[in-house]
C-alpha cells in the first residue's frame, strides 16, 4: 500500500471510530430520555410520599404502643401496635402510663396527655389542647392563634402529630401512639410468663428444666409467630429444592434428544427444542396459575411450577453442554478400542457432570428467589407472608423481619450452592 493512502485511510478509520464512540452513549442517553418522559419520572417527585417513606423506615426498627380510651364508658386499653394479641392485661401498662381514675400518659420531653371525660394534651412550646367529646363533636379548644401544621382538626376529629407520638380524638375514642425503639414482644408476648425476663433469669429457667416450655413460648409467640415463619421459610426452600432437582432429573434424558451429536433425528430434535422453549416461555408465573386450579394453594403447586419452567431451561442448557463436549477425550478413549457405551461413560459423562451440577446448583439459589415470588402469587411460603404484610401497609417491622430472613435464606443458598459446587466439582478427584 502506498504510504500516503495508508495515512489517510487510517485517519478516516479513526474518525469513523470516533463517531461510533460518540454514537453509543448518545443512543443510550436518548433512550433514557424517552424512558424519562414515558415513565413520567419528572412527576415522580410529586408522587413520592415522604411521610410514607418515613413511616416505613421508622416502623421497621421501632414499634408503637397504643393507649386508647373509649369515650362512652371511659375504659382504657393499652396494646402494642394496637393489636389484640399485644394487649396489656387490664390494670397494667408500661411505666410511662399512670393508670387510675384519671389516666395520664407521659410521652416524654414534657408532652403530657390526660384522659378522662375531658382529654387534654400539654404540648411544650405551644400550649394546652383540651377536648370534651360528646354526641355533638369533640369540642376541642386550642391556644390562641392559627392552628399549627401538626394539628389536623375538624368538629368530630382532632389529630396531633408530634415528634414523640401521635394523638387522635373522635367522638367515640381518644388514642395515643407512642413510638419506641426495637421489635417489641419479639421473644415473648405480654401474656407469657417469660415476658420481661433478662437473659440471666431466662438462662436460669432454661437450666431448671423449663427449656422446652421457654422454647414453646418463643416458638408460638402470637405476635411474631416464629414457628409459622419458620415453616413458611421451609416451604419456600422446599419449592426451590424440589423444583430445581426435579427439573434436572426430567431434563437430562430430554436433553440427549435435543443434542445434535446424540440424536441424529432432526424432527425429534426440533420437537424437543420447541418443548423446552414452550416450557420456559410460559414462565413460572403462568404455570403457577395454571397449576393452582388442579392442586390448590401450597408448596407442591409452587414446586411443580418451578419444575416445569426449569425443565425448559435445563433442557436447553444441558443439550448445549452436550453439544460442546470435547472430542479429544472421546477420541482418547476410542483409540483404545472402547465400545460406544464406554465412550459415553468415560469420554462424555465426566465432562458433563460438572457442567450439569454447576448449572443446577446455580439455579438452586435463583429458584429460592423465584419460590418467594411464586408463593406470593399462589399462596405458600414466606412470599405470601411478605406480600400480605406489605399489603396491610402497617406491619413494617414484620416486613423487615421477613425481608431479612429472605435475604439470609437466599445468601445461605448462594453460599451452600457455591460450597457444593467447589466440593463436588473440584473435589471429587476420581470423577467416579
Amino acid at each position, binding site marked *: 500500500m502506498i504510504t500516503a493512502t495508508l495515512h489517510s485511510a487510517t485517519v478516516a478509520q479513526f474518525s469513523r471510530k470516533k463517531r461510533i464512540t460518540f454514537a453509543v452513549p448518545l443512543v443510550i442517553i436518548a433512550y433514557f430520555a424517552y424512558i424519562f418522559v414515558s415513565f413520567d419520572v419528572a412527576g415522580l417527585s410529586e408522587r413520592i410520599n415522604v411521610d410514607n417513606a418515613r413511616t416505613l423506615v421508622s416502623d421497621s426498627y421501632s414499634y408503637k404502643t397504643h393507649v386508647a380510651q373509649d369515650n362512652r364508658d371511659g375504659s382504657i386499653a393499652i396494646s402494642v401496635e394496637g393489636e389484640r394479641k399485644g394487649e396489656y392485661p387490664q390494670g397494667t401498662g408500661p411505666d410511662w402510663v399512670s393508670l387510675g381514675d384519671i389516666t395520664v400518659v407521659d410521652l416524654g420531653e414534657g408532652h403530657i396527655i390526660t384522659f378522662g371525660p375531658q382529654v387534654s394534651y400539654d404540648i411544650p412550646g405551644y400550649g394546652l389542647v383540651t377536648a370534651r367529646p360528646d354526641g355533638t363533636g369533640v369540642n376541642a379548644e386550642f391556644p390562641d392563634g392559627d392552628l399549627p401544621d401538626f394539628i389536623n382538626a375538624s368538629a368530630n376529629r382532632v389529630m396531633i402529630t408530634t415528634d414523640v407520638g401521635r394523638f387522635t380524638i373522635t367522638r367515640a375514642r381518644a388514642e395515643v401512639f407512642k413510638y419506641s425503639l426495637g421489635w417489641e414482644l419479639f421473644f415473648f408476648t405480654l401474656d407469657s410468663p417469660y415476658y420481661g425476663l433478662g437473659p440471666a433469669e431466662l438462662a436460669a429457667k432454661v437450666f431448671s428444666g423449663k427449656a422446652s416450655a421457654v422454647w414453646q413460648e418463643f416458638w408460638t409467640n402470637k405476635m411474631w409467630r416464629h414457628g409459622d415463619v419458620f415453616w413458611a421459610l421451609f416451604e419456600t426452600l422446599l419449592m426451590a429444592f424440589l423444583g430445581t432437582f426435579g427439573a434436572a432429573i426430567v431434563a437430562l434424558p430430554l436433553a440427549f434428544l435435543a443434542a445434535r451429536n446424540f440424536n441424529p433425528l432432526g424432527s425429534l430434535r426440533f420437537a424437543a427444542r420447541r418443548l423446552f422453549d414452550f416450557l420456559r416461555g410460559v414462565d413460572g408465573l403462568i404455570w403457577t396459575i395454571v397449576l393452582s386450579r388442579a392442586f390448590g*394453594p401450597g408448596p407442591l403447586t409452587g414446586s411443580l411450577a418451578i419444575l416445569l419452567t426449569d425443565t425448559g431451561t435445563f433442557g436447553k442448557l444441558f443439550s448445549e453442554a452436550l453439544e460442546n463436549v470435547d472430542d479429544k477425550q472421546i477420541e482418547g478413549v476410542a483409540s483404545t478400542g472402547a465400545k460406544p457405551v464406554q465412550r459415553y461413560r468415560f469420554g462424555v459423562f465426566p465432562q458433563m457432570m460438572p457442567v450439569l451440577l454447576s448449572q443446577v446448583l446455580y439455579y438452586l439459589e435463583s429458584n429460592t428467589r423465584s419460590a418467594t415470588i411464586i408463593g406470593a402469587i399462589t399462596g405458600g411460603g414466606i412470599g405470601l407472608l411478605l406480600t400480605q404484610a406489605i399489603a396491610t401497609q402497617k406491619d413494617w417491622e414484620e416486613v423487615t423481619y421477613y425481608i431479612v430472613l429472605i435475604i439470609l435464606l437466599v445468601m445461605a443458598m448462594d453460599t451452600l450452592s457455591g460450597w457444593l459446587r467447589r466440593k463436588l466439582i473440584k473435589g471429587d478427584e476420581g470423577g467416579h
Partner: protein
Amino acid sequence: DGHVIDEFRIGILGGENAQDRMNSNECLRSTIEDALGVPTRLFAPADYNGVIQGLLGGTIDLSLMGPSSYAAVYVADETAVTPILVKVNVDGSTGYYSVGFARIDSGVASLEDMQGKVFGFGDPNSTSGYLIPSVEIPDLIGASMDNGDYFGEVKFTGGHEQTIVAVNNGDVDGGVTWTDGQGNWEDGYTFGALRKAVDSGLIDMNDIQEIWRSKLIPGEPVVLRNALPDDVRATVTEIIDTLGETDPECATALAGGEVSGFDPITHDAYTSIVAARLAQSN
C-alpha cells in the same frame, strides 16, 4: 352421596396478615375438626382468585367470600358450590355498602369532580371494590368506566387496603372500598376497610370525604362445596349457623369484625350479583 372425606380445607380471605387470618380462624378450624373427626386445615391464598380457583378445583371446601367472588364460582361452574349462610350485622341487618371517597385537599367532593381524574378500583373480583361501582356509577354519570371516557384513567389497585393508601397518597384521585355504613365517619364507621386503616393509624378521616355510596349489597356468603358428603355439609352448616351463640368471639374473628352471627341464605339472594357479573363479562 355416601363417600367419606379424609381432610377438610377452609379458604380464608381478608384484609389482614396471612398469619393473623390463620390465627383468627383457628377457633373455627378446631371446632370443625372436632366435629368431623378429620384433619382440618386453613389456607390463605394471596387474592380472591386463589379461593375461587380452590373452590372450582375442589382443593378448598369452605370459604366466607364476597358476593362477586361467589358469582365468579357460580358462573364458571353452577354446580360447584352453594351459599349456605350470610353474615349478620350487630343490628340484625345483612349487607354492606360500597363507598367512594377522595381526599378533601384534592378538591374532589363528588363524582362530578372526578371527571378526567384517576379512579381506583380494588380487586377485580371484589363486589364493593369493583363490581357494584362498575355497574352503578356509569348509570349516575351517564358514561362508561373505560379509560378516558369519563374518568381520566381507571385502574385496579389490587385490594381494599391498596385503594385506601392510593387515595391517601394521591396516586388515584378517588377510590371505592367497603363499609357497613354504621357508626361515625370520623372513626371510619364501625366495620370495614376504612375502619381498619384508621385503627392502624394509616389514614386520618379528617383528610378524606365520601363522594358516593352504593345501594345495599347482599351480605357476604359462607359457601360450601357441593361435592362434600351430606353429613359433612350438615355438620359444618350447623356449626357456623350457631356460631354467633356458641362462640361469639369466633364468629367475630371469622367475619373480621363485630357481627351477631350467621343466618341461612340461598343462591336467590345473589342472582342480581350474578347478573351484574355477567353484564361485566365479554
